[in-house]
């Protein structure tokens, strides 16, 4: 099993052995020992990427555990604020060093850095060191622990007294490396509750994971090489092909991340833990506001609760509100990584949101159905165009893709295998069927024979038509 160098990816044989082993042991163990099993499994899961990464998660755990305990016992407001400040400095400091410091380091290939390639060799070596040691999922667990400290500060939750159980809240393996970003008040009580074996939970978990694997392996992994071809050489292709590549990335990232989230939810549910929904068919949104209620919900609600509302929310002057909106969207863009492209992507969404809100009072009278359909098409197109900045390696690269989208520059074509077309049709039908209903509930509507035919069809797609190129989950890099 290749677990020491690559981590326990959900879509790996190692994970498919690891998860049942943990689940069986979990239900065999008495409740009071289960946290030890889950903590051990979570650290093993995270350490499988690189054992050194565990030091950061331990640091974050110990710092926020201690600060939360002090926040609970200290009464002075200034002292409590100082403690929150310390938590922010430590958590965001670690995030800055590992994710954003490289923006300020020389633009050299970290692979070949040596004393001759940069003016200040230590900067080059530092870049090399950081490049090879970005801990997976650091943004996710950092935000999860930060939300805990802020919730304790605002006395929304009581601090956890048990260090081991708090460590489990920070590192719970199904959602550790790419979310959903859970809140302490939601996850911790579930971890503390004695979970009994529930057949229905397993049935739901199986359905979530099955569709999650379908999304990742059949849609994302099949689209990835086609999208890569277009983004590697946008000037080789016609506008139509670049449009295909652009939309292809929109579906790739959705299938990749929504697939991961469903597998995470399924894995947690096998342990009796219900994680929050992270996606609700976002490409059927009829406005940008609705899109952000359906896309990466755990992050957008995090920013709403811990940034937008502290900045004043909607109860302030219009211009201040507009600035707050732009700050939230730009910061959420930057959360994804140290590249100006993410800033621009966030700013585009912020701008679109503001325009949408400004135009709302002017909206002409159009039948509701027509407005919904036209709105969905418009939002779909705008969101797909914004993804160009998210996918591109640099601002220049994004401009090159957009320029090829407007004016055909080449005549090369993409070879789309027949099975990719078939799985895409299956995906589209499944998404339409799931509008406002989660996949497990949708599958549960059918009688057993029909349901098993659907299972068999999805299993066939996974077994025979999965993509074979090696593309890790996109959000792992964040």
């Amino acid at each position: 099993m290749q677990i020491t160098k690559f981590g326990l990816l959900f879509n790996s044989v190692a994970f498919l052995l690891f998860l049942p082993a943990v689940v069986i042991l979990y239900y065999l163990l008495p409740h009071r020992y289960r946290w030890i099993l889950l903590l051990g499994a979570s650290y093993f899961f995270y350490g499988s990427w690189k054992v050194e990464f565990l030091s950061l998660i331990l640091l974050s755990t110990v710092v926020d555990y201690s600060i939360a305990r002090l926040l609970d016992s200290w009464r002075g407001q200034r002292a409590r604020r100082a403690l929150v400040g310390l938590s922010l400095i430590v958590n965001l400091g670690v995030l800055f060093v590992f994710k954003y410091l490289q923006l300020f380091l020389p633009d050299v290939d970290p692979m070949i850095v040596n004393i001759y390639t940069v003016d200040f060799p230590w900067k080059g070596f530092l870049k090399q060191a950081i490049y090879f040691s970005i801990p997976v999922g650091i943004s996710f667990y950092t935000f999860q622990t930060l939300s805990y400290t802020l919730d304790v500060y605002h006395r929304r939750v009581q601090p956890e007294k048990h260090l081991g159980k708090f460590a489990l809240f920070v590192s719970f393996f199904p959602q550790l490396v790419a979310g959903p970003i859970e809140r302490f008040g939601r996850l911790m009580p579930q971890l503390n509750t004695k979970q009994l074996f529930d057949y229905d939970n397993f049935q739901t978990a199986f359905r979530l994971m099955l569709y999650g694997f379908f999304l990742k392996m059949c849609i994302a992994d099949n689209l990835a090489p086609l999208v890569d071809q277009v983004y590697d050489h946008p000037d080789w292709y016609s506008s139509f092909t670049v449009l295909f590549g652009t939309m292809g990335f929109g579906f790739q990232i959705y299938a990749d991340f929504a697939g991961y989230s469903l597998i995470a939810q399924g894995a947690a549910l096998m342990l009796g833990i219900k994680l929050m929904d992270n996606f609700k068919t976002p490409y059927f949104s009829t406005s940008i506001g609705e899109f952000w209620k359906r896309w990466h919900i755990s992050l957008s609600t995090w920013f709403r609760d811990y940034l937008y509302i502290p900045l004043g929310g909607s109860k302030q002057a219009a211009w201040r509100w507009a600035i707050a909106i732009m700050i939230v969207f730009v910061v959420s863009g930057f959360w994804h990584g140290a590249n100006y492209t993410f800033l621009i992507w966030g700013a585009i969404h912020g701008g679109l949101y503001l325009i949408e809100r400004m135009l709302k009072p002017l909206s002409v009278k159009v039948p509701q159905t027509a407005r919904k359909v036209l709105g969905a098409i418009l939002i779909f197109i705008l969101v797909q165009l914004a993804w160009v900045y998210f996918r591109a390696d640099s601002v220049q690269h994004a401009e090159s893709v957009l320029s090829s989208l407007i004016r055909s520059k080449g005549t090369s074509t993409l070879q789309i295998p027949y099975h990719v077309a078939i799985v895409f049709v299956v995906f589209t039908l499944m998404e339409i069927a799931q509008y406002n209903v989660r996949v497990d509930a949708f599958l549960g509507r059918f009688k057993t024979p029909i349901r098993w035919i659907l299972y068999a069809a999805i299993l066939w797609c996974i077994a025979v038509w999965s993509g074979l190129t090696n593309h890790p989950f996109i959000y792992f890099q964040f």
Partner: protein
Amino acid sequence: MPVQQHIVFRAGVRLVSLIVLGIVFNAVYKNFLWMDDLDKHGPMLYNLKQVQDTSDIIYFGESSNFTTAETDQSTAAISEIVDDAIPERVGTINHGAYHAGMYLPLIKQIDPTSVKKVIVTMNLRTFSQDVIYNPDEASLQQAARFYQPAPPLTNRLFAALKHYDSKDGHERDREKWHAWTYDTLKGNETHKFEPNTIRRWCEVDKFIDSNGTVDMHKRILADQYIKAYGWQLDSSNPMVNSFDDIVEVCNEKKLDLYFLILPENTEDARAYVGDNLVWLINQNVNWLVNRYGNNATLINCIHDLPAEAYIDRDKIPQEHYYDFGRRKIASKIIGELTGN
């Protein structure tokens, strides 16, 4: 029925249904889609299935077998020359960049009722860090997944689950640079290595004239030779492990095994880098002879060709030979096979 028994029964029915589904899927896949997948993702198993029923000998090689030059009078591959010269039928399995790790699963799939002998090329460069940590290795390993002796659908699914050495190019590059930086060379009284790592050896100034101008063409070539041959074999080398396994599989299948140590351009290695590099090449070849001399027939061609025989000698050290070079290698193989 008690609740627990009911759950066990329901779960059991579902498990059996999944197993039946898997068997049916495998049968459908094997009969209708497998060959297409093999053609795209594991072409050499497809070839092996085509040639092994009509072959007495299978020749496993990489681009050294089939690469030709425009000036060649004959474009015959080494294995084709051998096939023409002996009464036994020689089937060819060759693919650019293949190495022992790729040949091994294919050899496991050989049907010994037809095939009696196996010739496997030993390309010295494939033992180097440059090849072991090649950024493109993941795609080869994916093909190797398709070559495993398992139900075809299992191999397809495992390939989709990346159940092979699927490290990406960045990670392999990092490992390569680590090896070039920290793997040290051990000399003796007459051959001392200072600097003693590939990285430092490459960083040494070379081919500078009296004006301080560097002949970059020669310098780059010299560094290529250092990266290709500046290492020392031991039993931890992954290629050695693969060759060990090949020996074992051939023993089990009672196949006569021939290892063909391909010629390397030792003349240019000496000219560009020096005696120390040729000493390393000889030391490594001797190590291979000692390890495999008793388990297989070794056809050692390491010094058999002059520098003029190498097609790419001005670009890169590579085992691509002109027509006369391929013929010379083939004649040595023929000699070993026929005992002449």
